[in-house]
Each structure stands twice: as structure tokens, then as C-alpha cells.
């Protein structure tokens, strides 16, 4: 099963990734070859096999629900490309008209 140009466009939209036409063409071929290679798993009988999650049986450790000191607001905002004194800024996404 090969990957169509529309498939790549759909994935790019889902992944919030804008692609040039040249990238689209190249990725279509490369992803097609990789997915074709992955097709070999279809030959494995997994009828009675339960999906694995982490490779081994993990006992997740809990911890007491206690408040610890975290980052300050200034620290959290320190690496942001755009912010005010207490919040991250993004382009407008609510249409006020």
C-alpha cells in the first residue's frame, strides 16, 4: 500500500507542520517506502497476543499528594518568545467581530 500526496497533506495538517511542494513530493516517496517495509508485520500472527505497553511490567510508583515549590511565574515564562508579566502570548484565535 503506497502513500498518496493527500495522505501526506492530511498528516501534515494533523501534525501542524507546513510543507513545501518539494518536501511533499520527497516525503511521499520516503514514507511510502518505510510504510511498505512495515507491512511485513502483517505476516505475524498476533491473534491471541495482548498489546504491550512498555516492554516490561511496570509498577507505577505513587507519591504523597503534597504541595512542593515549583517554578516561579518568571522562570516559567523565561524562555517564551512572547509573554507579558504573567502569561504567554499567542496570535489572536478568537474572532471578536
Amino acid at each position, binding site marked *: 500500500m503506497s502513500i498518496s500526496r493527500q495522505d501526506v497533506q492530511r498528516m501534515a495538517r494533523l501534525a501542524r507542520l507546513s*510543507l513545501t511542494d518539494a518536501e511533499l513530493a520527497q*516525503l511521499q516517496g*520516503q514514507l511510502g517506502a518505510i*510504510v511498505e517495509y512495515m507491512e511485513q508485520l502483517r505476516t*505475524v500472527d498476533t491473534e491471541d497476543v495482548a498489546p504491550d505497553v512498555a*516492554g*516490561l511490567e511496570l509498577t507505577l510508583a505513587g507519591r504523597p499528594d503534597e504541595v512542593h515549590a515549583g517554578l516561579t511565574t518568571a522562570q516559567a515564562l523565561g*524562555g*517564551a518568545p512572547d509573554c507579558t508579566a504573567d502569561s504567554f502570548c499567542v496570535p489572536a484565535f478568537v474572532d471578536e467581530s
Partner: protein
Amino acid sequence: MKDALTGLSAVDVASRVAGGTLSAVQVVEHALAQANRTAPLGAFLSLRDAEAVEQARSIDARRAAGKPLGRLAGVPIAIKDAICTRGAPTTAGSKILTQSGTLQSAWRPPYDATVIARLGAADAVVIGKTNMDEFAMGSSNENSAFGCAKNPWDPARTPGGSSGGSAVAVALGAASLALGSDTGGSIRQPAALTGVVGVKPSYGRVSRFGLVAFASSLDQIGPFARSVRDAARLLGVIAGHDPRDSTSSQSAVGDYEAACDAPVRGLRIGIPKQYFGDGLDSAIRDRVQAGLTSLERAGCVLVDIELPTTDYGVATYYILATAEASSNLARFDGVRFGARATTGGGLDAMYAETRAAGFGPEVKRRILLGTYVLSAGYYDAYYDKARRVRRLIRDDFTAAFEKVDLIASPTSPTPAFALGERVDDPLAMYLADVYTLPASLAGLAALSLPVGLTEATARFPALPAGLQLLAPAYEECRLFSAAAAVERDFPYLPPPAAAPFTATGAV
């Protein structure tokens, strides 16, 4: 004195610094000088010159005041740039974690990874951050956004990846130790290609808190060293449960250094037929055979075993790892850190343009692949299928470990390949990981150690070869015992690019 300093083991440095016969400042300045001298090999993305010397000075002052020092007192260590270091540049090899595409504008995390805190408590000195494939996606270092690290045995060749810079720093003596991360072989393969020891701890053995996530069900932080004992010391320092990583194991941390001296007579070593097939370069096969002979001479018993699902490792891994990556990398959206593309458009356009400008080609490829295998209509055929095959791969190992104590194999099917050779063929690059991926999928403990240089052939000059040892999860002690036995026949060899240099321990 300079050469002798570079050649000292980490264990020796720590005991001399603690004993007052060597100054931490001297050791750290020497490592920094070696790092600067070998800068053309691209091992480091950033150095912490001033901070490292300052920390070394305080270590020397504490010793002079009669205070006790940690297990890695004064030991210079290099850190893969995927691990958060408070206030110091952290890029994960990507432009998206910089403001303007330059290392000078790199993100500076407001906190330390747990492993960094533990190294600090042990008085190790972080001297810099090392080069890597972008977001740890790659097997050659060529996916670094800042130019790749080069193999110190032949600068026209790859040092391996993704933790290539860490391997090169240790091979060159620009650091006594290094940390890398291994998702599908990213510590073991560069260790093999550069001739050093690399350890991928069992899943959950080391806290992932503060590691920039690639594939969360596979990622593990682990040591690079020039000797098995040095690697054991480092793992002992960083291993153990961390309340901030609920997947970190609560099982007891072993005495890995004692394990280096434990007898190996009678240890049963499984040799999986599937790891010695057609794709294995003959020069590597010869070196691995020499490593197996060392194990036999030390009294181990070699047992032929079968791991029939081995061939499915690559497909299974590249479905699961890309699926997890596509989710983990959603956080790089131009809002909280790094770069933001300025567009006239709205929020969605900002996301899409920021990610287009910030991510390199391999990262885009994997995000799209991961999105594909998770998307409606394909989830069952790819993602769910791969999770089931993952269980079969794990079951294979479980069955094998009922018959043997350890498994031995080549780490990489070939010696270091030429830079540029595989960049246009992602699938060929993925196949470089064929021997390391299955153990990652099964969460096992794994180690690669050098077994000498290959014979030069028409395809490859004489280059380092690695022997991979695998143990059941949390049985790292077995790895160190067997590796120490092999190491007696194959001590660390300094690469030509490291000169002036002397071998480990020579003073």
C-alpha cells in the same frame, strides 16, 4: 603530566581528588583544554568553562577543609544536549529550541534533570553539552541542526548516533565520562563505533525527569566511559527511583562496581543465530568472535539460542517510536520556549510555520510517520499491531533467559560508515539499529564494549568494533561482570585524533 591526566580513569580521578593528591581544578582545566583542542571533531555544542572551573575550585576547597567528597569528586563529565541543565544551553540538537537558530540563543531550562542533580551531589563536574541527532532521531549524528560530530578514528566517518557527541568526547579524553540517552541504540551504537563502553540501563532504572522526551516507553539515560568500572561507578550514581518519574523502578540498585570483580565461571551466554546473519559485516563478525572467545576463556559457557522475532524489531520500533514522538513533540509549538515563526496568520498558521522552520527533515519524517500510524483507519494495522509484536519480541527474550544468563551479539552490523553515505535513504539508516532495537523494545539491560579494531577490508579501514551484552531487566550486575572479563583482553584504545594521549591508568 598532561597526557597522564587525560588517561586517568574516572575512578582514579575521584580517589586522587578525594585524597588530595590531585586538584579538581587541574583535571577540569585539562579536560576543557582537550575539548578545545579537538573542537573540529564537533563533540560539544557548548562548554561550561567558567562554571566548571568554579565548581572544581569549590570541590578542592571542601577537601582542603577536611569535608567528605562524593563518588565522582572532580570527574569531568559531558552531557548529551537532550538532558536539561539549569541555566545552561539545552537544544536537543534542534533549532526549534533556540530563539534565532544559533547555539548562543539556545533555551536555558529553569531546572536540572534528576541525573544532573545526582551528578552534582556526587561532585562530578559538568563541562559541557554534547552534539546529537535532532531530538535523538538518528544513527549517525548527521541530523544535528548544528553540524555533526565526527569519528575520532576517521573524521570522514560517522561517530554513530544519536549520542555521538558524548561517545566522541569520552573517546578523545575531553571528558572522563559522559551521559547519553538510548531509545533504540543511541548509546550502544556510538559506543561501538568509537571504541568506548556504553550502557543502556533497563527501562526504569534511571529517572527520565528532565530528559527531552523522544519515545517515552523506550527512552533511558545511561553512561559512556573508557572502562567498564568507570561506567559501573557512573550508573551507580544516577540509578534509582525518583518520585518525579513514576516509571522509574523502585527495585534496589545493584553494586555495579563489585560486579566488575565477580567471577563469571559457569555463566551461560546465549548466542542468537539471528544476530549473525547475512547483514553482518565479516570484519565485525571476527571481532565479536574474539570477544566470545574471551568469555569462554574466562569460564563462561556459550549456548546457541533462537530469537525468531528479531527481524520484526526494526518495523515494530519505527512504528512505536514515531507514534510516541509525534505526540511528545507536539509541545514544540512556538509558545513556551524556543523560536516562533512570525506569520500574518492566526494561531494555527503560527504553529505550522514555527514547526516547519524549527524541525529538520528527519524529525518531520518521523512526526508524519507517527501521525500516520496513529491516525484513524491505520491505528489497528500499524500501531496496535506493533504493540502486539512488541510482546512477542519480549516473550522471545523471556524464553531465552530461562536457558541463559546473558545474551551476546554484535552491537552494529558494520563499522562506522562514511558521512553522507545513508542520508538520502532513511530506511538504510534505520537498519543500522537492527541489533540494538529488540532489547529496547523489551526493556532489557544492555551494554556495548570495544573488542578491538577490525581488520581493514576493501569496504572499511581498521575501525572499532563493539560486543553487545544483554541481561534481563534490572540484572545490570551480570552485564558488568561479563564485560569486565572481556575488557581484560580488550582495554580501551585511544583514537589517533586523541593524541597526545596515553591509555587508561597510565601515569
